[in-house]
C-alpha cells in the first residue's frame, strides 16, 4: 500500500512534469510547421507572380491583327507574257499588288511620304503570302480575292493597346495613319485572329512573322543528342563506380572530380566545346550535334551523382540474394539492382535535361546564339534553341517582340512541364513493375 502510494506519487510527479512541458512542445511543433508553410507559400507566391506577369504580358501574342485586302492578282504584274512558268510566277511583283490594293482602299493619299506610311499598314510578309498562293494554285492569276494578311507590328501594337495614344496623338504613329487605322476598323477590315505564325515559323525580324518553331525543333534535336549521349554514359559510369570498381585512391580521385564538374559554370563547358569539338574535331558551328555534346558534358555529372545515389539506396539484401541463388555479379546488377535503381536514375536525368534545356551560356561559344530563319532538318543543320530565341527577342528594338518574348517563355515552361510529366509517368511505370 505504502509502496504503491509512493509509486503513484512518483509517476504523478513525472506526469506533471511531462504535462508542463507538453504545451511548450506543442507550441514548438506549431512554430516549426508554420515556418514550413511560410516557406512553401513564399515559393508558391513567387511562382504565381512569375506566371501571372509572364502570361499577363504574353497572352496577347497568341493573337495577331489581320487586315482584309481585296487583292487583284493582276496578270500584268505576275506573268505579263502569260508563260505560266513557275519561275516567272515566283518573281512576280507581289509587293506591288499589295500596295495597289492599299491604294484602292485609300484613294485620296497622294503625297509620297504618306503613301509610304500607307504601304506600311500591311506586313512585308503579305507579299510572300500572295506568292505562295499563286505558286500553289496558278489559276487564281487574273482573279480578285478577299484575303486577310497580317498587319505591320505597329498597327498590331496599337490595336492591342500597347502604344500610347494621348488625345489622338502618339509619338510613334502619325495622326493620319491613326485615322486610316480607325477607318479600317470601322469598315470591319481589321480583325484579331489566332497567331499561327508564332507556332509554325522560324525566326524573323518582323515580329508579325516571327515564330518559335525553328527554336523548338532545334531544342528537340539538341536534347535528343544530349539524352542519347549522357544517359547511357552516365548510367554506365555510375554502375561501374558503384558496383564493380575497387575502392582505392583512383576511384576517390574520380569521384571528387565528378562532384567538382557538377559545380563548374556552364560557360566553361562552352569554351571546352569550342576548343575540342569545333577547333580540334572540326565539327560545324551552330549545329545541334555540338550543342548536344556540350550540354551532355554538363549534364553527365548530375546524372552520375543521381544514379550513384539511387544505386546506393538499393538494399544489399537484393544483391546478396541474387548472388546467393547463383547469379554472377553482372547478372545481379543488370537483373536486380539496375531495374530497382532506374526510377531514381530517370529523375536525375530529367533534372539534368531540364537544366540543359534552359542553358544559353555554353551555346554562345559554339555559335548557337544566332539569327536562323530556316527550320533545322537534322542534327548537323544550323539551329538555335528556345532560351536563345527568348534572349534574342528580348533584345530586339521592336515593341511587338516584348509580348512575343513572354509568349516564348510560356512555351518554354510548357516544354519543361511536358518533360517533367513524362518523367513522372515513366518513373511510375518502372516502379510498378517491381
Amino acid at each position: 500500500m505504502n509502496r504503491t502510494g509512493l509509486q503513484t506519487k512518483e509517476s504523478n510527479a513525472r506526469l506533471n512534469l511531462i504535462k508542463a512541458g507538453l504545451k511548450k512542445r506543442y507550441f514548438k511543433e506549431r512554430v516549426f510547421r508554420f515556418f514550413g508553410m511560410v516557406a512553401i507559400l513564399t515559393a508558391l507566391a513567387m511562382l504565381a507572380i512569375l506566371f501571372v506577369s509572364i502570361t499577363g504580358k504574353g497572352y496577347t501574342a497568341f493573337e495577331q491583327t489581320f487586315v482584309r485586302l481585296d487583292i487583284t492578282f493582276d496578270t500584268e504584274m505576275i506573268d505579263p507574257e502569260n508563260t505560266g512558268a513557275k519561275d516567272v510566277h515566283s518573281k512576280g511583283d507581289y509587293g506591288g499588288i499589295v500596295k495597289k490594293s492599299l491604294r484602292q482602299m485609300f484613294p485620296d493619299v497622294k503625297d509620297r511620304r504618306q503613301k509610304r506610311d500607307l504601304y506600311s499598314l500591311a506586313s512585308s510578309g503579305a507579299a510572300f503570302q500572295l506568292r505562295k498562293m499563286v505558286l500553289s494554285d496558278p489559276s487564281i492569276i487574273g482573279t480578285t480575292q478577299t484575303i486577310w494578311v497580317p498587319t505591320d507590328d505597329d498597327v498590331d501594337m496599337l490595336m492591342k493597346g500597347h502604344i500610347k495614344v494621348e488625345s489622338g496623338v502618339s509619338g510613334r504613329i502619325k495622326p493620319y495613319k491613326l485615322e486610316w487605322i480607325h477607318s479600317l476598323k470601322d469598315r470591319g477590315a481589321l480583325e484579331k485572329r489566332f497567331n499561327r505564325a508564332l507556332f509554325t515559323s522560324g525566326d524573323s525580324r518582323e515580329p508579325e512573322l516571327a515564330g518559335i518553331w525553328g527554336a523548338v525543333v532545334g531544342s528537340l534535336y539538341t536534347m535528343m543528342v544530349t539524352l542519347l549521349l549522357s544517359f547511357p554514359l552516365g548510367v554506365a559510369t555510375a554502375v561501374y563506380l558503384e558496383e564493380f570498381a575497387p575502392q582505392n585512391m583512383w576511384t576517390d580521385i574520380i569521384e571528387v572530380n565528378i562532384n567538382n564538374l557538377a559545380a563548374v559554370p556552364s560557360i566553361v563547358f562552352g569554351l571546352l566545346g569550342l576548343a575540342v569539338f569545333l577547333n580540334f574535331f572540326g565539327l560545324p558551328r551552330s549545329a545541334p550535334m555540338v550543342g548536344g555534346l556540350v550540354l551532355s558534358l554538363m549534364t553527365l555529372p548530375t546524372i552520375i551523382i543521381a544514379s550513384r545515389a539511387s544505386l546506393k539506396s538499393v538494399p544489399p539484401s537484393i544483391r546478396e540474394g541474387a548472388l546467393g541463388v547463383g547469379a554472377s555479379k553482372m547478372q545481379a546488377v543488370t537483373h536486380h539492382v539496375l531495374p530497382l535503381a532506374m526510377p531514381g536514375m530517370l529523375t536525375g536525368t530529367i533534372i539534368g535535361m531540364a537544366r540543359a534545356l534552359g542553358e544559353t551560356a555554353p551555346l554562345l561559344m559554339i555559335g548557337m546564339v544566332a539569327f536562323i530563319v530556316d527550320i533545322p532538318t537534322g542534327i548537323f543543320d544550323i539551329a538555335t534553341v528556345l532560351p536563345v530565341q527568348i534572349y534574342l527577342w528580348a533584345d530586339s528594338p521592336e515593341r511587338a517582340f516584348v509580348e512575343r518574348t513572354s509568349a516564348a517563355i510560356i512555351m518554354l515552361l510548357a516544354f519543361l512541364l511536358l518533360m517533367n510529366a513524362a518523367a513522372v509517368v515513366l518513373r511510375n511505370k518502372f516502379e510498378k513493375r517491381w
Partner: protein
Amino acid sequence: MKKNIATAAVAVIAAVTFLVPALTASLSAAGRDYISIVGSSTVYPFATVVAEQFGKTTNFKTPKIESTGSGGGLKLFCSGIGIEHPDITNASRRIKKSEVENCAKNGVTDITEIKIGYDGIVIANSRKADIMKVSRKDLFLALAKDIPMGKEGELVPNPNKTWKDVNTSLPDIKIEVLGPPPTSGTRDAFAELGLEGGCKEFEWIRTMKKKDSKNYKAICHAVREDGAYVEAGENDVLIVRKLEANPDAFGVFGFSFLDQNADRVQGSIVDGVEPTFENIADGKYPVSRPLYFYVKKAHVGMIPGMKEFLSEFTSEKAWGEEGYLVDKGLIPMLEEEKKKFLEDGASLKNLSM
C-alpha cells in the same frame, strides 16, 4: 527486358564513338551552302533583315548571323580561310590596323570593306519630363571620372551631383544616366564621340592628344563609377522601361530604340541639334558613327550566294532612303558615298587603310 537496358547502352556508346568521326569526315567534304555572318550587335538588327529578305526572295539559303560584338566578330573572321570560318563580319567601327595584320597572318589578305550607313547614339529621357538641351561639354563634365577644375593640368574626381552643378542653365535634378557597360560598342562610341567631344574643349587636354595620347584617352574616355552612370546591361529595352518609371533619369542607346519607342521617350538636344533621322543623316548630330561589314574575298565563289547577298545589301531597296533598313532605324549615307560603296561591293575592291 532487363538485359536490354545494358545492351542498348553499350550499343549507343559504340555507335556514338564510331559515328561521330565518320560523320565529321563526310561533313567537311560536303561544304557549306549558307553564308555565315558574325559581328557587331549594333549591325545585327540590320544584317538580319537583309538576310531574311535574301533568303525569302532568292533560291539561296538564309544566311546565319551571330551577334558576337565587333571585336569578337573580327577575331573569328580573321581566324582563317575555309568553310569553318565566317564569310562576313559586321562592325560598328572601322577595322583596326592590328586586326588587318592578324587577318593577314592567317591568310585572310583580301578583304572588301562596305559601309552601310550610320547609327546615332541618343541621350533620352521619359516623355513625362522636359526635353533636355545639353552640350557635349556638359556631358563630359557630368559623366567623366575626373574633370579639370580651375587650374590647368589638374584633375579632380567628378564632384558634380546635379545637372545644375554642371551648367547653371540645366535643371536641378540628380545626374542619373543609364547606359551600356564597357564591353559594348555603343559605350565605346558614346565615349569617343560624346565625351571626348566635350573633353577636347579644354585647351590643355586637346594639346595632350598628340604628346600623350594614352593619357588623353584615359582622361576623355573614363566614365565615373560613383553611381551617377549606371551600367544597365546590353539590353536597351530594359533601359527604356526604366526611363519610363523614372522621369529624372537619362538613358544612352542607339537611335533605332528611340525611333521604336518614340511614344515613351524623347531624345535630348545635343549641341543644339535634335537627334532626328534627318539631322543624323546630314551629319549635323554630333554623336553618330558609321557601320560597316567586311567580306572575305576568298570565300566569294566558294560559298554560294555571296555576290547576290552583297548586291541585296547594297541595293537601293535595302539601304536607300526609302529602303527597308531605314524602317529599322538605319541612317542612310549620302548619294556619293552610297555610290562608292556600291561600286566597291560589285568589284570586290580590296580594303585600303
